[in-house]
Protein backbone atom coordinates (compact mmCIF):
# COMPACT_ATOMS: atom_id res chain seq x y z
CA UNK A 1 0.00 0.00 0.00
CA UNK A 2 1.15 3.51 -0.75
CA UNK A 3 2.25 5.63 2.15
CA UNK A 4 2.39 9.30 3.01
CA UNK A 5 5.58 11.04 4.05
CA UNK A 6 5.02 13.24 7.06
CA UNK A 7 7.09 16.25 8.16
CA UNK A 8 6.11 18.10 11.30
CA UNK A 9 8.04 21.34 11.74
CA UNK A 10 7.72 24.15 14.26
CA UNK A 11 9.79 27.33 14.21
CA UNK A 12 11.88 25.91 17.05
CA UNK A 13 12.57 22.46 15.67
CA UNK A 14 11.63 19.64 13.36
CA UNK A 15 9.57 17.16 15.38
CA UNK A 16 9.00 14.57 12.66
CA UNK A 17 11.24 14.16 9.66
CA UNK A 18 10.16 12.17 6.62
CA UNK A 19 8.20 9.54 8.48
CA UNK A 20 6.19 7.04 6.39
CA UNK A 21 2.59 7.00 7.64
CA UNK A 22 -0.74 5.57 6.45
CA UNK A 23 -3.00 8.46 7.40
CA UNK A 24 -2.89 11.95 8.86
CA UNK A 25 -5.79 13.76 10.52
CA UNK A 26 -5.41 17.52 10.68
CA UNK A 27 -7.14 20.14 12.81
CA UNK A 28 -8.00 22.42 9.88
CA UNK A 29 -9.53 25.80 10.56
CA UNK A 30 -12.94 24.63 9.34
CA UNK A 31 -12.93 21.23 11.03
CA UNK A 32 -10.92 18.07 11.06
CA UNK A 33 -9.59 16.75 7.81
CA UNK A 34 -8.22 13.33 6.98
CA UNK A 35 -5.39 12.88 4.51
CA UNK A 36 -4.79 9.55 2.78
CA UNK A 37 -2.28 8.67 0.07
CA UNK A 38 -3.30 10.09 -3.31
CA UNK A 39 -4.81 13.27 -1.83
CA UNK A 40 -5.10 16.27 -4.15
CA UNK A 41 -2.58 19.09 -3.79
CA UNK A 42 -3.82 21.23 -0.96
CA UNK A 43 -2.83 24.08 1.29
CA UNK A 44 -4.70 24.15 4.58
CA UNK A 45 -4.67 26.64 7.37
CA UNK A 46 -4.48 24.94 10.76
CA UNK A 47 -6.65 25.72 13.72
CA UNK A 48 -5.85 24.55 17.21
CA UNK A 49 -6.51 20.96 17.99
CA UNK A 50 -5.43 17.38 17.68
CA UNK A 51 -3.14 16.25 14.91
CA UNK A 52 -2.97 12.48 14.56
CA UNK A 53 -1.21 10.07 12.32
CA UNK A 54 -1.48 6.31 11.87
CA UNK A 55 1.48 4.20 10.92
CA UNK A 56 1.48 0.39 10.93
CA UNK A 57 -1.57 0.23 13.18
CA UNK A 58 0.00 2.58 15.71
CA UNK A 59 -1.49 5.98 16.36
CA UNK A 60 0.26 9.03 17.72
CA UNK A 61 -1.40 12.28 18.73
CA UNK A 62 -0.11 15.85 18.91
CA UNK A 63 -1.62 19.13 20.01
CA UNK A 64 -0.97 21.41 17.01
CA UNK A 65 -1.64 25.11 17.44
CA UNK A 66 -2.03 27.19 14.30
CA UNK A 67 0.04 27.18 11.15
CA UNK A 68 -0.24 25.64 7.71
CA UNK A 69 -0.18 22.28 5.99
CA UNK A 70 0.95 21.55 2.48
CA UNK A 71 -0.11 18.29 0.84
CA UNK A 72 1.75 17.57 -2.38
CA UNK A 73 2.56 14.27 -4.09
CA UNK A 74 1.93 12.23 -0.96
CA UNK A 75 4.18 14.45 1.13
CA UNK A 76 2.50 16.16 4.05
CA UNK A 77 4.40 19.17 5.41
CA UNK A 78 2.93 20.49 8.64
CA UNK A 79 4.13 23.96 9.64
CA UNK A 80 2.77 24.32 13.15
CA UNK A 81 3.30 27.42 15.26
CA UNK A 82 3.59 25.09 18.20
CA UNK A 83 3.19 21.36 18.64
CA UNK A 84 3.43 18.99 21.57
CA UNK A 85 3.11 15.25 21.86
CA UNK A 86 -0.22 14.57 23.58
CA UNK A 87 1.30 12.17 26.08
CA UNK A 88 3.83 14.76 27.17
CA UNK A 89 1.39 17.54 27.97
CA UNK A 90 1.32 18.33 31.65
CA UNK A 91 -2.22 19.37 32.58
CA UNK A 92 -1.21 20.81 35.91
CA UNK A 93 1.41 23.00 34.28
CA UNK A 94 -1.05 24.26 31.68
CA UNK A 95 -3.57 25.12 34.39
CA UNK A 96 -0.96 27.09 36.25
CA UNK A 97 0.07 28.88 33.09
CA UNK A 98 -3.53 29.87 32.37
CA UNK A 99 -3.95 31.09 35.91
CA UNK A 100 -0.80 33.19 35.79
CA UNK A 101 -1.74 34.66 32.41
CA UNK A 102 -5.27 35.50 33.54
CA UNK A 103 -3.89 37.22 36.59
CA UNK A 104 -1.54 39.36 34.56
CA UNK A 105 -4.36 40.14 32.13
CA UNK A 106 -6.61 41.40 34.93
CA UNK A 107 -3.78 43.51 36.30
CA UNK A 108 -4.10 46.80 34.44
CA UNK A 109 -0.59 48.01 35.16
CA UNK A 110 1.14 44.89 33.95
CA UNK A 111 3.35 45.51 30.96
CA UNK A 112 2.32 42.65 28.70
CA UNK A 113 1.11 42.06 25.20
CA UNK A 114 -2.60 41.35 25.56
CA UNK A 115 -3.03 39.67 22.22
CA UNK A 116 -0.09 37.42 22.91
CA UNK A 117 -1.34 36.54 26.39
CA UNK A 118 -4.79 35.71 25.04
CA UNK A 119 -3.26 33.57 22.34
CA UNK A 120 -1.20 31.75 24.91
CA UNK A 121 -4.28 31.06 27.03
CA UNK A 122 -6.06 29.69 23.96
CA UNK A 123 -3.09 27.50 23.19
CA UNK A 124 -2.92 26.17 26.73
CA UNK A 125 -6.65 25.36 26.68
CA UNK A 126 -6.29 23.61 23.32
CA UNK A 127 -3.40 21.55 24.67
CA UNK A 128 -5.46 20.52 27.67
CA UNK A 129 -8.38 19.51 25.46
CA UNK A 130 -6.18 17.29 23.36
CA UNK A 131 -4.70 15.75 26.48
CA UNK A 132 -8.13 14.98 27.94
CA UNK A 133 -9.32 13.29 24.78
CA UNK A 134 -6.11 11.39 24.50
CA UNK A 135 -6.53 9.68 27.87
Amino acid sequence: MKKLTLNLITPEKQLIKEMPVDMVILPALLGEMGILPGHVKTIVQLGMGSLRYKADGKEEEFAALGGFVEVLNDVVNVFAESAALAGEIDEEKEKQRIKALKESLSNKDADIDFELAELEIKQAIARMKVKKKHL
Partner: protein
Amino acid sequence: MESLRDIRQNIKAIKSTQQIMQTMKMISNARIKKAQEAMVAARPFAQKMLEMVDDLKQDILALPQPDDGSETWAGRIFVNRTGDANKVGLIVITGDKGLTGSFNAVVLRSALAFLRENKDKKIFVFAIGKKGRDFLNRLKMPNLHLVYESVGIFPKVSYVHADLLGDAVLKTFMQEKLGSVALIYNDFKSLASQTLRQTQWLPFDFDQVQKEKEESDFEFEPGMLEIFKILVPRLMKANLYRVLLESQAANLAATMNAMDAASKNAGELVTALGVKLNKVRQAGITNEILDIVNGAEALNN
Protein backbone atom coordinates in the same frame (compact mmCIF):
# COMPACT_ATOMS: atom_id res chain seq x y z
CA MET B 1 67.29 53.35 22.96
CA GLU B 2 64.44 52.04 25.11
CA SER B 3 65.19 51.38 28.74
CA LEU B 4 64.65 48.03 30.37
CA ARG B 5 61.76 49.43 32.35
CA ASP B 6 59.96 50.65 29.24
CA ILE B 7 60.21 47.25 27.60
CA ARG B 8 59.03 45.45 30.73
CA GLN B 9 56.02 47.74 30.97
CA ASN B 10 55.28 47.19 27.32
CA ILE B 11 55.31 43.43 27.75
CA LYS B 12 53.04 43.65 30.76
CA ALA B 13 50.52 45.80 28.89
CA ILE B 14 50.44 43.44 25.91
CA LYS B 15 50.03 40.43 28.15
CA SER B 16 47.03 41.89 29.94
CA THR B 17 45.41 42.83 26.62
CA GLN B 18 46.03 39.31 25.44
CA GLN B 19 44.26 38.02 28.51
CA ILE B 20 41.21 40.11 27.66
CA MET B 21 41.23 38.89 24.09
CA GLN B 22 41.45 35.30 25.19
CA THR B 23 38.51 35.80 27.51
CA MET B 24 36.46 37.37 24.75
CA LYS B 25 37.29 34.44 22.55
CA MET B 26 36.17 32.03 25.21
CA ILE B 27 32.91 33.89 25.76
CA SER B 28 32.11 33.80 22.03
CA ASN B 29 33.07 30.17 21.95
CA ALA B 30 30.61 29.35 24.71
CA ARG B 31 27.81 31.37 23.12
CA ILE B 32 28.32 30.17 19.62
CA LYS B 33 27.24 26.63 20.36
CA LYS B 34 23.85 27.83 21.50
CA ALA B 35 23.56 30.24 18.58
CA GLN B 36 24.44 27.51 16.15
CA GLU B 37 21.87 25.14 17.59
CA ALA B 38 19.13 27.77 17.40
CA MET B 39 20.12 28.50 13.82
CA VAL B 40 20.14 24.88 12.71
CA ALA B 41 16.79 24.29 14.42
CA ALA B 42 15.16 27.27 12.69
CA ARG B 43 16.43 26.36 9.24
CA PRO B 44 14.00 23.60 8.20
CA PHE B 45 10.89 25.66 8.98
CA ALA B 46 12.05 28.64 6.95
CA GLN B 47 13.43 26.54 4.12
CA LYS B 48 10.39 24.26 3.75
CA MET B 49 8.10 27.24 3.86
CA LEU B 50 10.02 28.86 1.02
CA GLU B 51 9.68 25.63 -0.92
CA MET B 52 5.95 25.59 -0.26
CA VAL B 53 5.48 29.10 -1.63
CA ASP B 54 7.59 28.11 -4.58
CA ASP B 55 5.25 25.15 -5.21
CA LEU B 56 2.44 27.69 -5.34
CA LYS B 57 4.22 29.84 -7.92
CA GLN B 58 1.96 28.98 -10.85
CA ASP B 59 -1.20 29.52 -8.85
CA ILE B 60 0.08 32.83 -7.51
CA LEU B 61 1.04 34.18 -10.92
CA ALA B 62 -2.35 33.13 -12.27
CA LEU B 63 -4.15 35.17 -9.63
CA PRO B 64 -6.69 37.50 -11.18
CA GLN B 65 -5.74 41.18 -10.90
CA PRO B 66 -8.15 44.12 -10.91
CA ASP B 67 -8.60 45.74 -14.35
CA ASP B 68 -8.32 49.32 -13.11
CA GLY B 69 -4.54 49.14 -12.85
CA SER B 70 -4.49 48.63 -9.11
CA GLU B 71 -3.07 45.55 -7.49
CA THR B 72 -4.24 43.10 -4.83
CA TRP B 73 -2.36 42.55 -1.62
CA ALA B 74 -0.89 39.25 -2.75
CA GLY B 75 -0.07 40.81 -6.11
CA ARG B 76 1.98 43.50 -4.39
CA ILE B 77 4.01 40.90 -2.55
CA PHE B 78 4.72 38.61 -5.47
CA VAL B 79 4.63 40.77 -8.59
CA ASN B 80 4.50 44.40 -7.45
CA ARG B 81 3.35 45.94 -10.70
CA THR B 82 2.26 49.16 -9.00
CA GLY B 83 5.32 49.68 -6.80
CA ASP B 84 7.12 53.00 -7.19
CA ALA B 85 10.52 52.25 -8.74
CA ASN B 86 11.86 55.47 -7.22
CA LYS B 87 11.35 54.18 -3.70
CA VAL B 88 13.43 51.31 -2.43
CA GLY B 89 13.89 49.62 0.93
CA LEU B 90 17.05 48.24 2.47
CA ILE B 91 17.47 45.94 5.44
CA VAL B 92 20.99 46.05 6.90
CA ILE B 93 22.03 43.56 9.53
CA THR B 94 25.29 44.18 11.38
CA GLY B 95 26.59 43.43 14.85
CA ASP B 96 26.40 45.68 17.89
CA LYS B 97 30.09 45.73 18.68
CA GLY B 98 33.40 45.99 16.91
CA LEU B 99 36.37 43.68 17.41
CA THR B 100 34.92 41.29 14.88
CA GLY B 101 37.40 41.61 12.06
CA SER B 102 35.74 42.62 8.82
CA PHE B 103 32.30 41.39 9.86
CA ASN B 104 30.60 44.79 9.98
CA ALA B 105 32.81 46.43 7.39
CA VAL B 106 31.82 44.12 4.53
CA VAL B 107 28.13 44.65 5.21
CA LEU B 108 28.50 48.41 5.44
CA ARG B 109 30.62 48.56 2.32
CA SER B 110 28.01 46.83 0.24
CA ALA B 111 25.26 48.88 1.90
CA LEU B 112 27.12 52.00 0.86
CA ALA B 113 27.44 50.68 -2.68
CA PHE B 114 23.69 50.07 -2.67
CA LEU B 115 23.01 53.60 -1.45
CA ARG B 116 25.27 55.08 -4.14
CA GLU B 117 23.56 53.05 -6.84
CA ASN B 118 20.18 54.33 -5.69
CA LYS B 119 21.19 57.86 -4.85
CA ASP B 120 18.47 59.37 -7.00
CA LYS B 121 15.76 57.40 -5.23
CA LYS B 122 14.09 57.62 -1.89
CA ILE B 123 15.63 54.96 0.34
CA PHE B 124 13.90 53.50 3.39
CA VAL B 125 16.35 51.77 5.68
CA PHE B 126 15.78 49.15 8.36
CA ALA B 127 18.89 48.87 10.52
CA ILE B 128 19.59 45.94 12.81
CA GLY B 129 22.70 46.23 14.97
CA LYS B 130 24.35 49.28 16.49
CA LYS B 131 27.23 49.45 14.03
CA GLY B 132 24.93 49.67 11.04
CA ARG B 133 22.62 52.19 12.63
CA ASP B 134 25.44 54.50 13.70
CA PHE B 135 27.00 54.30 10.28
CA LEU B 136 23.75 55.16 8.51
CA ASN B 137 23.07 57.99 10.93
CA ARG B 138 26.47 59.50 10.18
CA LEU B 139 25.87 59.48 6.43
CA LYS B 140 23.33 62.30 6.48
CA MET B 141 21.99 61.62 3.03
CA PRO B 142 18.83 63.68 2.42
CA ASN B 143 17.10 60.86 0.54
CA LEU B 144 17.75 58.30 3.25
CA HIS B 145 15.06 57.56 5.83
CA LEU B 146 15.81 55.36 8.78
CA VAL B 147 12.36 53.91 9.41
CA TYR B 148 13.22 51.13 11.79
CA GLU B 149 16.12 50.35 14.06
CA SER B 150 16.81 47.61 16.53
CA VAL B 151 20.01 47.56 18.54
CA GLY B 152 21.32 45.39 21.32
CA ILE B 153 19.45 42.26 20.28
CA PHE B 154 22.59 40.14 19.86
CA PRO B 155 23.45 37.62 21.15
CA LYS B 156 19.90 37.00 22.38
CA VAL B 157 17.84 37.06 19.21
CA SER B 158 14.32 35.75 19.61
CA TYR B 159 11.36 35.42 17.30
CA VAL B 160 9.87 38.64 18.68
CA HIS B 161 12.65 40.64 16.98
CA ALA B 162 11.90 39.04 13.63
CA ASP B 163 8.20 39.67 14.23
CA LEU B 164 8.71 43.40 14.83
CA LEU B 165 11.09 43.79 11.92
CA GLY B 166 8.78 41.85 9.59
CA ASP B 167 5.80 44.03 10.55
CA ALA B 168 7.79 47.21 9.99
CA VAL B 169 9.05 46.08 6.58
CA LEU B 170 5.63 44.95 5.34
CA LYS B 171 3.93 48.09 6.62
CA THR B 172 6.42 50.42 4.94
CA PHE B 173 6.37 48.34 1.78
CA MET B 174 2.57 48.62 1.53
CA GLN B 175 2.13 52.22 2.70
CA GLU B 176 4.97 53.84 0.83
CA LYS B 177 4.50 51.61 -2.22
CA LEU B 178 8.15 50.64 -2.39
CA GLY B 179 9.44 49.22 -5.63
CA SER B 180 11.64 46.65 -3.94
CA VAL B 181 13.35 45.82 -0.68
CA ALA B 182 16.91 44.47 -0.49
CA LEU B 183 18.56 42.65 2.37
CA ILE B 184 22.25 42.67 3.27
CA TYR B 185 23.63 40.41 5.97
CA ASN B 186 26.33 37.91 6.84
CA ASP B 187 25.52 34.25 6.40
CA PHE B 188 27.06 31.70 8.71
CA LYS B 189 29.11 29.33 6.59
CA SER B 190 31.37 27.66 9.09
CA LEU B 191 33.12 28.57 12.30
CA ALA B 192 35.99 29.89 10.23
CA SER B 193 34.14 31.91 7.62
CA GLN B 194 31.10 34.07 6.92
CA THR B 195 29.69 35.00 3.56
CA LEU B 196 28.16 38.31 2.69
CA ARG B 197 24.68 37.95 1.24
CA GLN B 198 22.74 40.53 -0.68
CA THR B 199 19.30 39.41 -1.75
CA GLN B 200 16.05 40.86 -2.94
CA TRP B 201 13.57 40.57 -0.13
CA LEU B 202 10.45 42.02 -1.73
CA PRO B 203 8.75 41.44 -4.08
CA PHE B 204 9.16 37.77 -3.39
CA ASP B 205 11.97 36.22 -5.36
CA PHE B 206 10.93 32.81 -6.63
CA ASP B 207 14.41 31.92 -7.78
CA GLN B 208 15.60 31.32 -4.22
CA VAL B 209 14.54 27.70 -4.44
CA GLN B 210 15.83 25.36 -7.09
CA LYS B 211 13.01 23.17 -8.31
CA GLU B 212 12.69 20.89 -11.29
CA LYS B 213 8.97 20.46 -11.44
CA GLU B 214 6.35 23.17 -11.60
CA GLU B 215 3.12 22.60 -9.75
CA SER B 216 -0.26 24.24 -10.04
CA ASP B 217 -3.96 23.89 -9.23
CA PHE B 218 -3.73 23.59 -5.49
CA GLU B 219 -6.84 23.44 -3.38
CA PHE B 220 -7.04 25.97 -0.58
CA GLU B 221 -8.86 25.79 2.69
CA PRO B 222 -10.17 28.36 3.54
CA GLY B 223 -9.72 30.51 0.39
CA MET B 224 -6.43 31.21 -1.32
CA LEU B 225 -6.37 34.93 -0.56
CA GLU B 226 -7.28 34.41 3.09
CA ILE B 227 -4.40 31.97 3.42
CA PHE B 228 -1.93 34.29 1.70
CA LYS B 229 -2.75 37.16 4.04
CA ILE B 230 -1.57 35.06 6.93
CA LEU B 231 0.95 32.87 5.21
CA VAL B 232 3.04 35.62 3.62
CA PRO B 233 3.85 37.56 6.80
CA ARG B 234 4.53 34.26 8.52
CA LEU B 235 6.93 33.22 5.77
CA MET B 236 8.69 36.59 5.83
CA LYS B 237 9.13 36.47 9.57
CA ALA B 238 10.29 32.87 9.63
CA ASN B 239 12.96 33.81 7.14
CA LEU B 240 13.91 37.03 8.89
CA TYR B 241 14.25 35.01 12.05
CA ARG B 242 16.54 32.59 10.26
CA VAL B 243 18.58 35.47 8.84
CA LEU B 244 18.93 37.06 12.27
CA LEU B 245 20.08 33.78 13.76
CA GLU B 246 22.56 33.23 10.93
CA SER B 247 23.89 36.72 11.43
CA GLN B 248 24.15 36.20 15.16
CA ALA B 249 26.14 32.98 14.79
CA ALA B 250 28.32 34.55 12.11
CA ASN B 251 28.98 37.53 14.36
CA LEU B 252 30.10 35.31 17.22
CA ALA B 253 32.28 33.25 14.91
CA ALA B 254 33.86 36.44 13.56
CA THR B 255 34.56 37.68 17.10
CA MET B 256 36.11 34.36 17.96
CA ASN B 257 38.37 34.36 14.92
CA ALA B 258 39.37 37.99 15.31
CA MET B 259 40.20 37.49 18.96
CA ASP B 260 42.09 34.29 18.22
CA ALA B 261 44.21 36.02 15.58
CA ALA B 262 44.74 39.04 17.82
CA SER B 263 45.83 37.00 20.80
CA LYS B 264 48.23 35.02 18.58
CA ASN B 265 49.69 38.30 17.34
CA ALA B 266 50.02 39.50 20.89
CA GLY B 267 51.87 36.29 21.73
CA GLU B 268 54.33 36.89 18.92
CA LEU B 269 54.83 40.46 20.04
CA VAL B 270 55.57 39.32 23.58
CA THR B 271 58.19 36.85 22.31
CA ALA B 272 59.82 39.51 20.15
CA LEU B 273 59.88 41.98 23.01
CA GLY B 274 61.32 39.31 25.28
CA VAL B 275 64.25 38.82 22.92
CA LYS B 276 64.73 42.57 22.77
CA LEU B 277 64.59 42.80 26.54
CA ASN B 278 67.31 40.18 26.89
CA LYS B 279 69.47 41.92 24.31
CA VAL B 280 69.16 45.27 26.04
CA ARG B 281 69.87 43.72 29.42
CA GLN B 282 72.88 41.82 28.07
CA ALA B 283 74.17 45.01 26.43
CA GLY B 284 73.83 46.78 29.77
CA ILE B 285 75.74 44.06 31.59
CA THR B 286 78.49 44.04 28.96
CA ASN B 287 78.81 47.81 29.27
CA GLU B 288 79.07 47.58 33.03
CA ILE B 289 81.75 44.85 32.81
CA LEU B 290 83.66 46.97 30.32
CA ASP B 291 83.44 49.93 32.69
CA ILE B 292 84.73 47.85 35.61
CA VAL B 293 87.57 46.28 33.57
CA ASN B 294 88.54 49.69 32.17
CA GLY B 295 88.46 51.20 35.63
CA ALA B 296 90.64 48.39 37.02
CA GLU B 297 93.07 48.71 34.11
CA ALA B 298 93.31 52.47 34.73
CA LEU B 299 94.05 51.89 38.45
CA ASN B 300 96.77 49.32 37.58
CA ASN B 301 98.43 51.75 35.25
